[in-house]
């Protein structure tokens, strides 16, 4: 197996961040892919929580929506939506959250509401959903999104979700972590130059003193990831 896509690198690196025993609030798309990859590799006891109320879901195939029947059938328990947000998330039972967004700023704040003004948007996005309270309910927030000057912006059009608990931002180019609150480039993916990441960022991106190179996806990670997607 040779080569991998930037999306695969993102998913693999995100999966590596999950520890066995983490209880993780998972959204659909890359977060769900990464969390399931972790569960099928180094973190079999990672607990996946989908906001539809399925706690400890162990889906065989990747769900298209957070409410696919497979999630309920394989869950430890299925709870109502009010219970999910009040008892489990606000109650502090979930330690990791996994979010994407349309825009991010240097403080890790996220916009998933509008491009343009709220009352007269040029693009109306879906909105916050569970994200605002996930961000304040968990200890550690992972963010995944593709990096470009359109997504990594100097000023958000709208702050949907506050980035205080963001511990890592994994992009298609590298890894950013907050240093003194400000997102800082700490690693680039294989073949990516730090300058390319700076150019893909809408603010003057800070670089860590020694920018590492991310370990490339291992054979086991890639084959497990591809098998999950093929199901």
């Amino acid at each position: 197996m040779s080569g991998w896509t930037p999306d695969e690198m993102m998913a693999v690196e995100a999966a590596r961040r999950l520890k066995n025993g983490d209880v993780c609030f998972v959204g659909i798309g890359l977060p769900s892919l990464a969390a399931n990859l972790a569960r099928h590799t180094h973190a079999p006891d990672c607990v996946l929580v989908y906001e539809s109320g399925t706690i400890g879901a162990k889906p065989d195939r990747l769900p298209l929506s957070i409410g696919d029947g497979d999630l309920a059938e394989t869950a430890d328990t299925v709870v109502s939506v009010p219970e999910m947000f009040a008892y489990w998330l606000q109650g502090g039972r979930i330690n990791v959250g996994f979010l994407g967004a349309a825009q991010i700023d240097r403080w890790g704040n996220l916009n998933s509401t509008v491009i343009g003004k709220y009352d007269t948007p040029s693009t109306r996005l879906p909105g916050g959903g569970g994200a605002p309270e996930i961000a304040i309910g968990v200890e550690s927030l992972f963010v995944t999104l593709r990096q470009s000057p359109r997504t990594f912006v100097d000023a958000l059009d709208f702050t949907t979700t506050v980035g205080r608990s963001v511990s890592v931002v994994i992009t298609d180019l590298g890894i950013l972590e907050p240093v003194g609150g400000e997102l800082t480039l700490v690693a680039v993916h294989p073949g990516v130059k730090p300058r390319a990441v700076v150019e893909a960022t809408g603010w003057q991106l800070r670089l860590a003193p020694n920018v590492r190179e991310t370990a490339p996806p291992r054979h086991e990670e890639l084959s497990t990831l591809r098998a999950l997607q093929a199901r």
Partner: protein
Amino acid sequence: MERVPLDVAISELVRDGDTVALEGFTHLIPHAAGHELIRQARRDLTLIRMTPDIVYDQLIGMGCARKLVFSWGGNPGVGSLHRFRDAVEHAHPAPLELEEHSHAGMAAAYAAGAAKLPFGVLRGYQGGHLASHTRVATVKCPFTGEELAAVPAHQPDVAIVHAQQADRNGNVQIWGITGVQKEAVLASKRAIVTVEEIVDSLTPRPGGVVLPAWLIDAVCLAPGGAHPSYAHSYYDRDNAFYIAWDSISRDRDRFREWMHRHVCKTANVTEYHASLVG
């Protein structure tokens, strides 16, 4: 509880200008009831729903809604809701007033509505911009002094939900992902439940939610009534339809044509399903 055809229930229990909550969190979305609201051309509705989804995209696109109270307006796993976006971005086919919340806020507002409390309380709406664009306030805990968010209770005129089964007396059972339906029904003045099947008696299911008949104004048989959503133990989510909806709904004319053919020109859920095959 009365067992009536869905068109009769909608006609008798939902009025123009009502505040209506169609709930079902990705599972058991009451599409057949949404279609009936469109056939009967209800207008000026305030539509409450956590995830507006395709069902509200259709109602908004067909001009039934005046206001939307929601927390996530996308096509799950696919992308945008184009009719919702067209209404917000271009006021087409009519302006749409928004009252936007987070999921946690909506859940708290339903729970407060069910408890007949004036507001729900949560740790939320902190720091972001949404609080200055929606109905939310802060309250101080009288015991600890902590500042908490208060959201006004949802008090819909009508709740509409879809369930797997009702028994012959009209008691209803929902199982699988049960979402916020119980709270929506308890928060509302009137309740309509569509069901996959009428059975002689309900068999308790793990995690099942039972709504007693006396809580419900109308139970309507609507097999397949959640499509393209799903009914656990009955049929799967039609993921291909969610993907197809992206192109159907993107274009105003194609959307209207689709709605006329599959909803307006069909009389009920059975004919709707036949039209999808034919």
